[in-house]
């Protein structure tokens, strides 16, 4: 299948946003029946390039050929007409409609609107590729993985031969990812071409036939997956050699720092989010929290940070001298006033940890604005801190005065983590600190977390990538359905066991 003519060909594509060049002179080919992985760091222009093919953006320069004919793609409809469909990172579905209604929505059909026929066609597509979709199910009743499936079926329904998936696995559990990959393989068998954007190198190696690498908006090279390895891909992506080891030192003199006892939390609807949680976080140690997203991780961290209304239980902070202080009933300001420096990198970076419309310096000020003299804020220290964070963490930003929402995901995260660590915390909590980050940025974050551990900080690390949790953490607490499913030693735990505990309460303990 190799030396046929490409089904999709990009020639010298350049796309600019104002003064920023997102893609420069990118040429790329896609062949029929192949899975091409598009790899690159955060902000390297992968999504922009794909959006240009899908008709979201129109490139300033360059040409696009489909089946050897030059085309001009002005809208997603043009893209569909050419057999190109994109599944975006953020789903574009209407919650109150059913799967079938969402799939046919926007189709220009001369004939009468016939949902039954559409349903039949949807079932046919599902059977062909092994999807699992009920056409009549409403979107709001669906899991993230089901919604993604609807998006893929929507694209196939419109007759797409070239499918673009933008980070499809970021929101999936390992099992769901496996299911998705099986479907992708089926589609490939059927002669479809697939372009997949992902940060996870093991997935790239597992699913793709060929890898194309972008760096800083430019096309670097393409490598046959069968001839590639993790190290080689990383180096090509980053542009220089990177060490891919997470150092795990033995904790030095761990002491109890945060003791959680019988913690129970309900949400505003009265649903129990956390049930009778018990654990201890110790100084100089990384406590990993594993679990499928949405099993109480958010509530747990927010409880400790003083942001959650607590039903019953206690959260004790142990002082240097061994005395204990109750954190339940405190708010973040009271906790700070007690002299406890508790740093928290929340899951929703722009929604909670940072203010998107404010610049870097003003975001640094979130933690320090009370330090100013009298009525006024001190604006100099945050500015200097922002400069320092930008320099030390290699934040890619036009200036300190740039609004944070204009930065790419990885850089936003660096700003947040940088600020939280700069406070010299005694407790550091991070939720999905590397979600959406490229490999280089991820390793910078792991390194930062490890440095805090070496400083004697009690680190609570909520993660989703089991490989990383097993490499990084000293102890791992597994959450399932708001309960502690088990606690394991990070050095001895194995992936299978943790995976089981994530899906079944106390899963592995019976074995």
């Amino acid at each position: 299948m190799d030396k046929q003519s490409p089904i999709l060909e990009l020639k010298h594509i350049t796309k600019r946003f104002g003064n920023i060049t997102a893609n420069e002179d990118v040429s790329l080919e896609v062949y029929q029946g192949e899975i091409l992985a598009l790899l690159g760091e955060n902000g390297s222009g992968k999504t922009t390039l794909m959006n240009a093919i899908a008709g979201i953006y129109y490139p300033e320069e360059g040409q696009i050929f489909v089946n050897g004919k030059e085309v001009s793609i002005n809208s997603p409809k043009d893209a569909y007409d050419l057999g190109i469909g994109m599944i975006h990172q953020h789903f574009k579905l209407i919650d109150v409609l059913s799967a079938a209604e969402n799939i046919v929505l926007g189709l220009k059909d001369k004939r009468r609107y016939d949902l039954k026929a559409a349903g039949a066609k949807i079932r046919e597509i599902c059977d062909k590729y092994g999807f699992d979709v009920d056409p009549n199910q409403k979107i709001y009743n669906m899991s993230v993985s089901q919604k993604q499936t609807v998006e893929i079926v929507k694209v196939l329904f419109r007759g797409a031969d070239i499918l673009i998936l933008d980070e499809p696995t970021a929101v999936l559990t390992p099992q769901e990812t496996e299911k998705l990959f099986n479907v992708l393989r089926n589609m490939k068998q059927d002669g479809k071409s697939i372009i997949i954007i992902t940060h996870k190198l093991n997935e790239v190696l597992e699913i793709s036939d060929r890898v194309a690498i972008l760096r800083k908006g430019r096309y670097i090279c393409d490598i046959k997956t069968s001839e590639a390895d993790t190290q080689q891909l990383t180096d090509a992506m980053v542009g220089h050699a990177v060490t891919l080891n997470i150092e795990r030192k033995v904790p030095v003199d761990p002491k109890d720092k945060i003791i959680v006892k019988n913690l129970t939390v309900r949400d505003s609807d009265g649903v129990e989010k956390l049930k009778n949680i018990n654990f201890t976080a110790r100084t100089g140690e990384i406590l990993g929290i594993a679990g499928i997203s949405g099993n109480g991780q958010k509530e747990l961290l927010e409880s400790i940070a003083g942001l959650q209304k607590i039903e019953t239980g206690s959260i004790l902070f142990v002082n240097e001298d061994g005395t204990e202080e109750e954190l339940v009933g405190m708010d973040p300001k009271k906790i700070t006033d007690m002299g406890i420096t508790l740093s928290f990198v929340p899951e929703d970076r722009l929604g909670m940890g940072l203010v998107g419309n404010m610049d870097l310096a003003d975001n640094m000020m979130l933690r320090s604005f009370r330090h100013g003299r009298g009525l006024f804020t001190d604006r100099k220290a945050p500015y200097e801190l922002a400069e320092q964070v930008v320099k030390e963490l290699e934040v890619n930003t036009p200036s300190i005065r740039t609004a944070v929402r204009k930065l790419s995901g990885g850089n936003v995260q660096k700003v947040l983590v940088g600020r939280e660590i700069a406070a010299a915390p005694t407790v550091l909590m991070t939720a999905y600190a590397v979600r959406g980050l490229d490999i280089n940025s991820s390793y910078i974050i792991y390194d930062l977390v490890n440095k805090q551990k070496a400083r004697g900080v009690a680190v609570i690390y909520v993660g989703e990538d089991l490989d990383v949790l097993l490499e990084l953490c000293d102890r791992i607490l597994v959450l399932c359905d708001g309960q502690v499913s088990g606690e394991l030693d990070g050095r001895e735990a194995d992936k299978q066991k943790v995976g089981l505990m994530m899906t079944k309460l106390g899963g592995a303990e019976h074995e």
Partner: protein
Amino acid sequence: MNRIPLIHISRRKDIVWYKAWLIRIIAIILALVLCGIITMVTTGLNPIKVYAAMIDGTFGTTRRIWMLCQNIAILLCISIALAPAFKMRFWNLGGDGQALMGALGAAAVMILLGDKIPNGLLILIMVVVSIVCGAIWAVIPAVFKARWNTNETLFTLMMNYVAIQLVAFFVIVWEVPKGAGKIGIINQNTNAGWFPQVGGSKYLLNIIIVAVLTIAMFIYMKYSKHGYELSVVGESEPTARYVGIKVRKVIIRTMVLSGALCGVAGLLLVGGTDHTLTTTLVSGRGFTGVMVAWLAKFNPIYMVLTSFLIVFLQRGSGEITTAYSLNQSYGDIITGIILFFIIGCEFFLNYKVSFRKSHKEVA
């Protein structure tokens, strides 16, 4: 499939200041040209003469310039009062009512205590009472919003009507002479509670007070801890809670400030210039102020410019409708077109429009 979009719109990262001003000036020129064409077609008048009349109506005499400054001062006072509320994303549409309550408070003190206590003390009490009245009118919806998350837009709007009814009631209570249905000039003989004239003008003191308040508000919003807190609350409440800002407290505190400053505007109208109380005293400035604040993106210093623009358009269009005995709507049309262009040019400040070079065909 080979059609290429001719016009290409892209977001600007940032824009140099002189370019931004060039775009604004072009917008105003275009607006004037369009207004001119409409003037010629619909009225047959020479547009240059019409514009000259507008300018003459605003700047023509010393009195007119004083009136212009006075109108700017009052509008600006209400606009800077609304700015922190809007920056906090609290839609305070109750500026009219809050200012009217301040006016009511000041008038009540003048009528009830006038001549009974020394004038200096009287004015001091007027200041306190009008500020408290304005603040109360603003804090009621704020408390409801902070406690029960009620919709502040409707709430503040409705409070305007309550204020108007209250004033209407007191106008009848205090009417002079009985049966007149209006209060007339308060303390006309004694001038009790009238602000002292500065520099021989009854307008200058108001203007100075508002200038000081404007600068103070600029500093408050940009450099103070309170100003920082209210902008964080406006941008994201979860973030505010995350850093330990008490959202309820900030909402209530900011609205007290907003209402108090509206109250000051009412005070300046009653004590400084008008010396009377009517239901139409504030004449919709609580709403015009919303536009002034948004146009200036909540920067009190820019609000000086935007309030000047609005007042100029109001007074200028008023002048031409009387000078050429045109329909009242004519002035509104001119004002509408000019505002449309000024607001519309924001698009060109945020987006770049370029024409695509046609690139060569490939067979």
